[in-house]
């Protein structure tokens, strides 16, 4: 009897295989949990959420976004009005028209990682008597 082995693509990979997330990846997903964002906004949000501890370069951000797209954790969306509500040109030339959205799978991964870290913290607090 022949057994067909289905090749697992990155977007089919079980969620547990994706954990633990690297810190920058975690913060990128966390920033998208608030809503759709374009690349520059993600950069700023990651810096804010990490209290300045994580400052990503453009290359690192887009390498991470490419990987998250491949894993199906985020999806690209077209911005409805890239030039602002009143159509005036923004301060930054070439403001991107593409933003990113956290997918359902991405939200599940984020929740799983949060739960994993929460369990770690609980175990440490119990052991160290910090509760």
């Amino acid at each position, binding site marked *: 009897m022949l057994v067909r082995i289905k*090749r697992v*693509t*990155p977007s089919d990979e079980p969620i547990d295989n994706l954990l633990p997330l690297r810190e920058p990846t975690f913060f990128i997903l966390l920033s998208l949990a608030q809503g759709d964002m*374009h*690349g*520059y906004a993600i*950069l700023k949000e990651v810096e804010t959420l990490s209290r300045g501890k994580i*400052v*990503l*370069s*453009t*290359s*690192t*951000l*887009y*390498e991470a*976004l*490419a*990987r998250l797209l*491949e894993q199906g954790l985020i999806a690209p969306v077209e911005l409805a009005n890239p030039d602002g509500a009143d159509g005036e040109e923004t*301060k*930054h*030339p*070439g*403001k*991107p028209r*593409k933003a990113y959205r956290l997918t359902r799978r991405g939200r599940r991964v984020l929740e799983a990682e949060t739960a994993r870290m929460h369990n770690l913290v609980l175990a440490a607090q119990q052991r160290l008597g910090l509760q």
Partner: protein
Amino acid sequence: MAAQREHPRTPNLARFALRLYALLLRLFPLSFRTEFGAEMQAVFAAQLDQAARQGSRAVAGFFARELTQAPRAVWGVYHLRRYQDGSSAGPGAVRPRLRDLLRAALDPQVHLPASDGRAAWPQAVLEVALFAGLGGVLILETYLPLPLRPAPARLVAGWVTEGLPFVLFGLGLYRGLPAWAYPAGGALLGQLLLSAQGPARAVFVALLVGLSIALAGGLALAARRPTLRAALRAELPPAAIDLGRSLARDWRRLSFGFYGLLPPAIRLAFDDGFVDHRTPWLAAAVLFMVAGALAYSRSRTSAGQAVALLGGLSAALSMAVLDHAHYAPGLAGAGWVLRLALPLAGIALAPLLAAIWQDAFRRVEGQE
């Protein structure tokens, strides 16, 4: 590009930085650049603008971050594409695979320039002339008994050794640097390296490496910018233009040029022991050197050329190990010869391997 639109607050330095960043982006695969390139340039411009508002320290920190994190990001992106299904790799998995590299190495080069040893035997003989000439002098100096070597003959031998590469290279420059002139350049380089001692040698090598990188970068830039090419053609002397054309025709010839370092390397490896030399190993080394050069001249595939150069070089220098073992039993001499042979092989093969990679890259891009 949208990121490079005129912005009233973008000074010249910022525009220069944006251009440099566009060059940096070329490290990434084509498919990645197609998908994210414009966005990345826009984000880079926005971040640069914000850093500029915060001061020069912020700008320096920004540039440092971009430069230091870029290599890891490039590696990460190339790593990503590896997991894509090869049959549906998408609009540009342009990293050549092993089968692309093998195909590029084994495909015969059918469009041969007219003045090339691969196309005509007389040309091949001309390409091997330097190795035969210098090798012949080495053999005469080594095996001819001293009484049969009068002072004038030794003087002439010295002139041939020093002068033949110089003459051939000069003639080659005049003729637009055909394939037979490249080894002469390599032999000249070898003589210069051997005659420089200690710190002078290190400075010479550093200068050479720096000039080579600058030349390669300039050629690459000119290849991509037709206006720059036209401007250079108008300004540069004809000899420089001929050099560029010669390299553009087939820069595998650089490998053959570096093979020209072998005659001085053989002289060095055999310790200049020419007095009443009795072992046949130097003669064998010269034979292997000439055979390697001839095999290279006639080979039509990149793989054949690489095998010819590597075979000739390693066989020739292996004879030096045997010669050392004859005078001092054991493999004490082997380590020293290996330290000479390995860098030489690396330098000689580098242009060939880069040319194979480039051919494979073009094949993959052509298939997209």
